[in-house]
């Protein structure tokens, strides 16, 4: 699939605070992997450089995925720091 895809991206915890927002709705060029989505977001200037962190985890439709995972139109993507519950 090529062309623009509409994707919702959520941010949690420290990342949400650093970016100053809980989510964005974005039109992005497909096909798109999680790694390239992260790179595109990181290249938007301050404060988006925090997206460059290699420690960030990514979930697509509420399942943890690898950086090679391909994002599709309508997916809910989430980026967040390593977890610290319990």
């Amino acid at each position, binding site marked *: 699939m090529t062309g623009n895809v509409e994707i919702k991206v959520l941010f949690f915890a420290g990342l949400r605070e650093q970016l100053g927002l809980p989510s964005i709705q974005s039109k992005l060029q497909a096909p798109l992997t999680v790694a390239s989505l992260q790179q595109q977001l990181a290249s938007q200037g301050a404060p988006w450089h925090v997206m460059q962190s290699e420690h960030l985890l990514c*979930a697509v439709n509420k399942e*943890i995925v690898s950086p090679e995972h391909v994002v599709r139109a309508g997916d809910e993507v989430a980026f*967040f*720091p390593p977890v*610290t519950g*319990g």
Partner: protein
Amino acid sequence: MFSVKVQHEDFNAGKEYQALTSVGAGAIVTFCGLVRDHSAEGRIDALTLEHYPGMTENTLQQLLEHAGRRWSLLAGRIIHRVGRLEAHQQIVFVGIASEHRQAAFEAASFVMDRLKNDVPLWKKQHGQQGEHWVEVKESDRQAGAKW
């Protein structure tokens, strides 16, 4: 037989234990995690727990089901609180019921070790040093990896 809950309200560990006694188990192991009032850096007043609605519940449920495939279990329950929790308040309950004690001990330990590594929950600490997001502890990472 496996159920999870993410909630702001406190829980009653006694009632949760009582509920597990009805499944015909020979062993029930329960664990409660509480907010400490200090760390190496000084006094802790409170924690704020953040979660990812939907994913946190799904991941907790998958964790119990994973334990149920690995050990012979009769029932399992996880309750995790979110929002602001003051020092000494309860954070998490894990209850595991099985025929014999070893499975219940091991499964409860597995659930807590993996919960700290795999479930989308984040702690912000409020205390003497101001407020900051809690960093991952190497000891917790190793405990999760041993299973």
